[in-house]
């Protein structure tokens, strides 16, 4: 047995209100640059809907991910190595910018410079690619909240797989939001597709990264990723993707999307797994068994044998402890309410989802029934084939069993906890009906409903010694006016030396978030950093004091 650690995420879809805060903060942090205007490391899709880029789930067209060959061997759906090299000059399976959207800005200057005229001057949309006027006809969220009506919604590739009758009823019945980031798969097909070998999975935390110095812009990763979460920076000619905010995760902070989620629906934790079992699990013949197969790749952090193997593999003890306290592990393995997104792509994704129960509850309430009664809910889950069928296409390759099981456990929790909260005697038969005991339900309720920051994000810091902190602080000085600050170098965007990834001094930022003091502890008494100044304390140190005249 080999042991590796993976930092993974679970999102509780019941709580997502589709506010896009995660997308916006992520964009501000990472893709607020030329060349990646259209890039959303995190996006929130309305389901049913086409997603971003449009219809990315139609693998008959885009051919992302893996498939099984005739003899049961795993191979890239878009074709093997030779085929990749032969089509390297023009990748026939790469989405065009129109499948994403042409990024634009507005000609605001016209508002200021237009002369006197009868009508109000307007700011016309201008393409950020060509600089010409454009007509905006699509964007990353054009069908948000079923906008655009049934015509757009019906083109959802997942909906197309659900039966006709279901499709017609569906739009009336059911809608939810699906936030997506890179899945940081155990078996990443983007990495396997990269001719240069620039995409790699980190051994310490399983984060999948693009080595910007080795990427040569062959674009095969964009095709290889079935989730279309590798993007091509059209200015630098390099692939970019969600990197799980690794500069933050390395110091024990959650990703930007998780940190800023207003619904607090994201959970981050460590999962131990056996890399030797990955290929076998990904080659499971029946796609419906992939969910179960992937769970068998995970290792129980309480098992002493696993702990010993982890120690031998060099996994530090605090990581093993974190794996035991991992909310991700609990939701996937203990409560069995989290499910993987599209396991049939055979990449073994590591961002899992708690399927939404609220739509079922809503339908039930609209029919006048008691929507939190266990019997009613169980009945509704069985009767509402539409959402179950759709969710199964999304999370279990079409097998309704695990989806029904997860929803029933969520329903059991609701009705059991209602009794507790109302002071009625709790009914132990409700958890028993879904194979849980009362403590399980209480724990699950705590994790899903109450869990505080430190329970939702159990992220052990990467091991680096104290001197590193000074090193990080030095980074910002280097960064100021450094290479990559904008404009074209002699060989294209940002050419030249290394730019530190850690734009913010993450150690210092973490300290200030947990400190009771008024001023950023990193700044001490000497100066106030106006860029970070959030109004706590005074900016008085900005001005020279009487005694400081010697400087």
């Amino acid at each position, binding site marked *: 047995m080999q042991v590796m650690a993976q930092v993974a995420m679970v999102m509780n879809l019941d709580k997502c209100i589709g506010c896009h805060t995660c997308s916006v903060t992520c964009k501000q942090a990472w893709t607020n640059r030329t060349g990646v205007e259209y890039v959303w490391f995190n996006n929130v899709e309305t389901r049913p809907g086409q997603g971003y880029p449009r219809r990315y789930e139609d693998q008959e067209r885009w051919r992302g991910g893996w498939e099984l060959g005739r003899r049961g061997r795993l191979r890239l759906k878009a074709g093997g190595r030779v085929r990749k090299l032969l089509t390297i*000059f023009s990748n026939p399976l790469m989405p065009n910018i129109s499948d994403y959207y042409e990024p634009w800005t507005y000609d605001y200057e016209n508002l200021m410079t237009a002369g006197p005229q009868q009508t109000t001057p307007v700011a016309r949309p201008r393409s950020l690619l060509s600089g010409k006027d454009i007509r905006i006809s699509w964007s990353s969220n054009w069908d948000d909240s079923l906008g655009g009506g049934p015509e757009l919604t019906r083109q959802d590739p997942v909906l197309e797989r659900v039966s006709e009758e279901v499709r017609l009823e569906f739009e009336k019945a059911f809608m939810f939001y699906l936030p997506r980031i890179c899945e940081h798969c155990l078996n990443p097909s983007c990495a396997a597709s990269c001719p240069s*070998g620039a995409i790699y999975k980190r051994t310490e935390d399983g984060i999948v990264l693009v080595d910007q110095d080795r990427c040569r812009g062959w674009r095969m990763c964009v095709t290889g990723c079935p989730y279309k979460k590798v993007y091509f920076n059209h200015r630098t000619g390099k692939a970019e993707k969600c990197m799980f905010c690794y500069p933050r995760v390395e110091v024990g902070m959650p990703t930007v999307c998780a940190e800023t989620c207003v619904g607090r629906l994201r959970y981050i934790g460590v999962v131990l797994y056996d890399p030797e079992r990955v290929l076998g699990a990904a080659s499971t013949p029946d796609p419906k068994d992939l969910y179960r197969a992937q769970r068998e790749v995970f290792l129980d952090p309480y098992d002493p044998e696993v702990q010993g193997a982890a120690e031998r593999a060099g996994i530090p003890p605090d990581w093993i402890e974190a794996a035991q306290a991992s909310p991700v592990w609990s939701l996937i393995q203990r409560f069995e309410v989290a499910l993987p997104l599209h396991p049939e792509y055979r990449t073994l994704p590591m961002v899992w989802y708690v399927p939404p129960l609220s739509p079922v509850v809503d339908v039930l309430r609209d029919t006048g029934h008691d929507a939190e009664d266990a019997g009613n809910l169980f009945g509704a889950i069985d009767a509402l084939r539409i959402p179950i069928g759709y969710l199964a296409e999304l999370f279990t390759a079409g097998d309704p069993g695990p989806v029904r099981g997860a929803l029933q456990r969520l329903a059991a929790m609701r009705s059991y906890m209602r009794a507790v909260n109302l002071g009625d005697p709790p009914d132990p038969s409700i958890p028993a009906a879904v194979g849980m005991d009362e403590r399980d339900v209480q724990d699950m309720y705590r994790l899903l409903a109450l869990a505080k920051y430190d329970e939702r994000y159990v992220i052990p810091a*990467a091991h680096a010694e104290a001197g590193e902190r000074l090193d990080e602080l*030095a980074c910002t000085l280097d960064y100021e006016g450094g290479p990559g600050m904008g404009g074209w170098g002699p060989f294209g965007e*940002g*050419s030249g030396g290394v730019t530190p990834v850690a734009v913010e001094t993450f150690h210092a930022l973490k300290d200030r978030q947990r400190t009771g003091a008024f001023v950023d502890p990193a700044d001490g008494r000497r100066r106030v950093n106006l860029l970070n100044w959030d109004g706590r304390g005074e900016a008085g140190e900005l001005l020279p004091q009487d005694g400081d005249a010697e400087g």
Partner: protein
Amino acid sequence: MKTFLWVIVPYVSIVIFVGGHVWRYRYDKFGWTTRSSQLYESRLLRLGSPLFHYGILFALVGHVIGILVPQRATEAAGIGDPIYHVLAISLGGVSGFMTLSGLAILVYRRRTVGPVFSATTVNDKVMYVLLAGAIVLGLLATVFGNALAGGYDYRESVSPWFRSIFYLHPRADLMAHAPLVFQAHAISAWVLYAAWPFTRLVHLFSAPIGYLYRPYIIYRSRPQGLGARPIPRGWERADIRPRRQG
């Protein structure tokens, strides 16, 4: 003048070519890319890019056979002069035509597709002129110098001269009497080579042959430091694994 054109220019160009690549690889790994514009437009690219690239790869093979391999070697392999010329002119013509038409499509695309045009740098434009110049002159040399004008045997002048450069015993006189079109093609090529390391053409040296042999999934350990900086001396990571007792 003879020495300048056929001795100094080649050596200067080779030094810049080699040194430039080494320097650029060390200084600018991040800028080392194809800078593909497929994201903007793929219909024309789908036609033009393979035409151009396969054409120029064929042309490369042709040049290796025609210039690097001595006449004696091909004759020893049983390819006589007439056969060689027919092959060289036909295959050279075809690959040259492929390259040129591919290039024409790509230049047309670059000029007419708005986003592609906006993404074109001055560096690109200079590179296109040099590249197109070398290709057109090469094709002219094949068609007019070789095929129509009754066949000029460059393997008795141009090729030995080219090889002599690498023997460090340059024979400029061989080249001085070659037809003008061959001379022009050679000079344009040297200029192109001198510019090569500073353009996007460097992606030639990234041809991902290793992809055929490497494992699909690559695991890499996090670099020693946090962030992108190299670790300064004295700050190396300590071994954090618990030591076993006994």
